């Protein structure tokens, strides 16, 4: 069975602090993809990143970075120097052979000015 766990339900930090959102996954597929999506208050899901199971190289995009570790089945997301506009619900997700995406329950991130 596939499962995605986001243990942090809500996080609140002050602007400019760094914050890491945790994601742990379970799958028996040898080939799979991991995703992060952002859902701002407007409700639309915004794709942030996709990683495949064969590529453990970490990625940085501006203030965002992702740490993929197969040994611990984790795909954590760090926002550096957070801004108020980063406030949103963030979902980690997994897809394998079955094609449908399995989403975590989401982490609500609030950035206080």
């Amino acid at each position, binding site marked *: 069975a596939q499962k995605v766990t986001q243990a942090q339900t809500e996080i609140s930090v002050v602007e400019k602090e760094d914050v890491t959102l945790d994601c742990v996954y379970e799958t028996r597929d040898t080939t799979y*993809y991991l*995703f992060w*999506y952002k859902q701002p208050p*407007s*409700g*639309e*899901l915004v*794709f942030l990143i*996709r990683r*495949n199971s064969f590529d453990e190289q970490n990625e940085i995009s501006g203030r965002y970075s992702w740490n993929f570790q197969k040994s611990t089945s984790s795909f954590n997301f760090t926002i550096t120097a957070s801004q108020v506009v980063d406030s949103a619900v963030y*979902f980690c997700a997994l*897809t394998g052979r*079955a*094609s*449908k*995406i*399995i*989403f*975590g*329950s*989401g982490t609500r991130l609030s950035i206080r000015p």
Partner: protein
Amino acid sequence: GAGVSQSPSNKVTEKGKDVELRCDPISGHTALYWYRQRLGQGLEFLIYFQGNSAPDKSGLPSDRFSAERTGESVSTLTIQRTQQEDSAVYLCASRLTGTRQETQYFGPGTRLLVL
């Protein structure tokens, strides 16, 4: 079109009525998905289309829910005899297949409220 579109954006209906929700995927995307998101919760998978066929309907919660897709394009999700528990945001996503693109791109959703 530039992205996935859904209509209506909001729908209020009375318990027991039928509703139809529409999804227009990104042009050329052969895979289409429906998800449901209850208030404050994550996304639940409902159904997946590859072309016009649905190889995975495992997420449909009851026989009141059905979906179809025509012309490898537009999809309609129908909920019959709506119940208050059906109130949620219904999200559609599409994906380009036949390449290594596995990313699903989501529409803005239809917010359904059953009174």
